[in-house]
């Protein structure tokens, strides 16, 4: 004869109507004799009854509104893609013009050397002030020292990981998070702690 523990595992499927007829009859027989399991089954039935009664309220126009919103997003995406395609030949042409102009200045005009030297000085100034070597903008000193100079390393890690997991644009995070879908809270917390130090 099965112990109550075994019936406890079958009761959720008994309540949802997903047991084979043999198992269903066995559970029925046991419930007649065991008040504890009967109470357990009634609690599970009460929970599933609330779920089955629940109806999601939706605006009748939601479907049409969704289609409009999606098409707008997709149109915007394709416009940007087209624009991006146009920029490639435009950029190549612009670069060719710059190279030809610079070469002709070096070769023909002595005064051009002076102009190039001035341009170099300007570039050097930019490199060591607010722009990187590849034109990226560096963070201003004032932003770094904006009252947050006493942040600990842990705070910085937490902030960075928080940003990474919160940013839906970073799709690689999805595959890591999907792999944790079966973990209970305690194990998940361990993974996140590990992630905090290893992802960076």
């Amino acid at each position, binding site marked *: 004869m099965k112990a109550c523990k075994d019936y*406890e*595992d*079958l009761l*959720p*499927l008994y*309540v*949802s109507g*997903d047991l084979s007829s043999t198992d269903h009859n066995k559970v029925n027989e046991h419930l007649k004799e065991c008040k504890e399991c009967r109470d*357990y089954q*009634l*609690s*599970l039935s*009460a*929970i*599933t*009854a*609330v*779920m*089955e*009664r*629940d109806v*999601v309220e*939706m605006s009748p126009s*939601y*479907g*049409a509104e*969704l*289609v409009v*919103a*999606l*098409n707008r*997003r*997709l149109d915007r995406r394709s416009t940007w893609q087209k624009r991006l395609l146009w920029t490639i030949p435009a950029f190549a042409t612009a670069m060719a013009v710059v190279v030809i102009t610079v070469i002709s200045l070096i070769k023909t005009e002595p005064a051009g050397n002076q102009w190039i030297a001035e341009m170099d000085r300007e570039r050097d100034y930019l490199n060591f002030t607010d722009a990187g070597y590849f034109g990226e903008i560096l963070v201003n000193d004032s932003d770094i020292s904006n009252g947050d100079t006493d942040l600990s390393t842990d705070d910085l890690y*937490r*902030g960075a*990981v*928080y940003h990474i*997991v*919160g940013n*839906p644009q970073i799709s690689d*995070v*999805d595959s890591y*998070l*999907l792999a*944790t*879908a*079966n*973990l*209970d*809270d305690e194990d*998940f*917390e361990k993974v*996140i*702690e590990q*992630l*905090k130090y290893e992802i960076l």
Partner: protein
Amino acid sequence: MSKGSEKEKDNLKPDNVRQYNADSFNRLVLENQEKIYSLFRRMVSSHDEADDLTQETFIKVYKNLSKFRRESAPFTWIYRIAVNTGINYLRRQKARQYIGLDSVDLKSGDDVIYDSELTNSLLQKAIKKLSSKQQMVIILRSYQGLPFKEVANIMDSTENAAKVNFSHALKNLKSVLENMGVSYESM
């Protein structure tokens, strides 16, 4: 296969899959939006969040139309994308809470309501405390009423594994509700 799913499959004939056809995509959205929105509405607490996730799901559907291999019904394929989107959303939220910068404290006793009746809003709070996969199996089977065969297809598992997962989820849900002080006597 049901008439509904045959009709859905017709919308994804090779011509339509290879060449983006706005009408067929729009029809696909209209035929599945209710199921996908209600899945998310049971998972999150606001209409806006559910709407965002529904849109994200259909954008992914659009981007991956050419990869759809017709091994399953479009309905199952779209559900699978939605479930993965939902699981990732829940994981991201939980990760942010664990990192400690979100205001919700998972381990606080804020949800303890003694001698309370079991209502759907309490149930939804309790469901949020389950693992994301257990949340999904509960929503798909008990709220959406899908058979386990379909649940297994969507969650890329066997039917038996889906049943075991559901059984654990419902038992865990009962324990969570008891810890919240819910009483079943009035049910």
